């Protein structure tokens, strides 16, 4: 081994370490952002005395990665035609989304306390005409994927290079229209479309297994000719890696099945179906925030 080679090796090590350090900073930053979003979402739901904490908390890490690392957007110009599109198909989880939009600067954070109140820009379920930064109204389940197919096709017609991201819930896999959309995305070879399944395995009335079994979920998407990845949806690094892989997929649409925990971050909410659509009372709220900050 020559001196030169040694030197090259050392430089590579240094660069590698720098990249590692950069990445750990990024992951830590995104973790902190996710904490903030969880805190804001629970505060909103507590203030509104209604809303959906369980599915908001399970989606928090995915939303943090999308909004603070991937999405090519301009909060000062929400209708910028080249922007990446994001659809929250599981619209009831909007508190976590509103928290992210406020943090990005789409609107003043003071709006968060008006969630679900009269004349608020923050409706109980997402409204594209009332909230800056929302590309599609949602809340009626199963429909977001089809809207995403339309946006991805529009990119093709208009010769634009944006990506369309859709966050799906597992309960809405029960809806037939979602599978109509899944078929069409692969028919049209939409490699500019990336779906992420917030797979917390609970729906309103019980577990997926009790209400309408979804497994084998990866096989379902594979059989619809999608590119399928399965990851831990609370591992920031894994979320980043999977989205990078999905962006490079050619010729087929991509889904990331993210195993998550409903109510993630608050012990008494985790995996408890009852927290699908219920606001915490004052003492529960205080304890919930304490746990999130401590994590």
């Amino acid at each position, binding site marked *: 081994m020559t001196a030169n080679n040694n030197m090259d090796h050392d430089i590579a090590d240094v660069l590698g370490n720098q990249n590692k350090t950069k990445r750990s900073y990024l992951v830590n930053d995104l973790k902190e952002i996710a904490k903030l979003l969880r805190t804001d979402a629970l505060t909103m739901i507590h203030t509104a005395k209604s809303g959906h904490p369980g599915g908001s908390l399970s989606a928090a890490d995915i939303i943090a990665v999308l909004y603070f690392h991937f999405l090519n957007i301009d909060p000062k110009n929400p209708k910028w*035609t080249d922007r990446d599109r994001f659809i929250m198909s599981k619209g009831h989880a909007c508190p976590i989304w509103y928290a992210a939009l406020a943090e990005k600067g789409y609107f003043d954070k003071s709006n968060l306390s008006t969630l679900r109140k009269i004349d608020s820009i923050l409706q109980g379920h997402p409204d594209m005409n009332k909230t800056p930064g929302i590309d599609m109204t949602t809340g009626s389940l199963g429909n977001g994927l089809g809207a995403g197919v339309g946006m991805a096709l529009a990119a093709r017609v208009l010769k634009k290079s944006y990506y369309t991201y859709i966050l799906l819930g597992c309960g809405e896999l029960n809806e037939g229209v979602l599978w109509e959309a899944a078929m069409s995305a692969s028919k049209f070879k939409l490699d500019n479309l990336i779906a992420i399944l917030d797979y917390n395995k609970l729906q309103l009335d019980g577990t997926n297994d009790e209400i309408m079994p979804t497994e084998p979920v990866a096989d379902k998407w594979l059989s619809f000719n999608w590119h399928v990845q399965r990851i831990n949806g609370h591992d920031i690094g894994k979320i980043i890696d999977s989205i990078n892989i999905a962006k490079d997929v050619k010729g087929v649409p991509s889904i990331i099945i993210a195993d998550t925990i409903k109510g993630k971050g608050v012990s008494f909410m985790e995996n408890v179906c009852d927290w699908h659509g219920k606001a915490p009372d004052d003492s529960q709220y205080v304890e919930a925030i304490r746990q999130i900050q401590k994590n």
Partner: protein
Amino acid sequence: MKESAPTRDAYGEQLVILGKENKNVVVVEADISKSTRTCYFASKFPDRFFNVGVAEQNEAMIAAGLASCGLIPFMSTYAVFGSMRCCEQIRTFICYTNLNVKIAVSHGGLTPGNDGVTHQGTVDIGVLRSFPNLAIIMPTDFNMAKAAVKEAASYVGPVYLRFTRDAVPLIYKEDINFKIGKAIKLREGKDITIVTFGDMTWYCLKAAEILEKDGIAAEVIDMPTLKPLDEKSIIMAAKETGAIVTVEDHQIIGGLGSAVAEVLSENHPVLVKRIGLKNTFAQSGEYEVLLKKYGLATDNIVSACREILKKK
């Protein structure tokens, strides 16, 4: 020059013209392009034509997504499916969002006679009329259909366009000045007003001719826009003739008859008689035979007018 033509043919032809004029016009179809006539557009503009298969809910969602990016999607199927299979998608994702989607459907009313009840769109207007933001249009003939499709494309917002499967007689000239929300008085008359739209218009004109022989002067108003309704024309007619007969290829519940009765009861109550399907499903059969069987034929219009005049 042709004497009659299906209005769906006009839709297909006008779409091709729109496709040439405006690159933002796109078409979403649910596997019946040969029937809805979107196949003409498909052959000219394959890159702007998306056949989603027999999946109307997804069709509506894709149309919403396309419109949200600034395109002008026309989504086509039959009236019965376009109004009900994707009813909620239209309400929530096209009307609530106020997106620029044109829902253009063939086989309106009893015109798909032989196919039977599953394919006859006879409640669509009643279902859709309660949706805020939606304009509802059924052009009367081929020439109006071409003008209405053109107008719908330049109108910003959701529009429901209803066409006939079968040929309907030509009433208007090619240079018709069609305006969304404007009624057209086709015949003057001081004794009674017949308000109608679409394929029934021609039968109403025939009925008015028969009534004239009896010395009854029937005014005929064509109301191609069911929403927003030309309320002024209806109120004026009620003031002038004091008796109204509505005629529609649709259920009498929820359609034109209901809309006219709503306007008059709030503004200028006069006697109203509604002709249409009377809270019943039809069946398979030739279109003209069905009109007779279910009380929508020329004779039925004539007797309804005579009946209401006795009560006036």
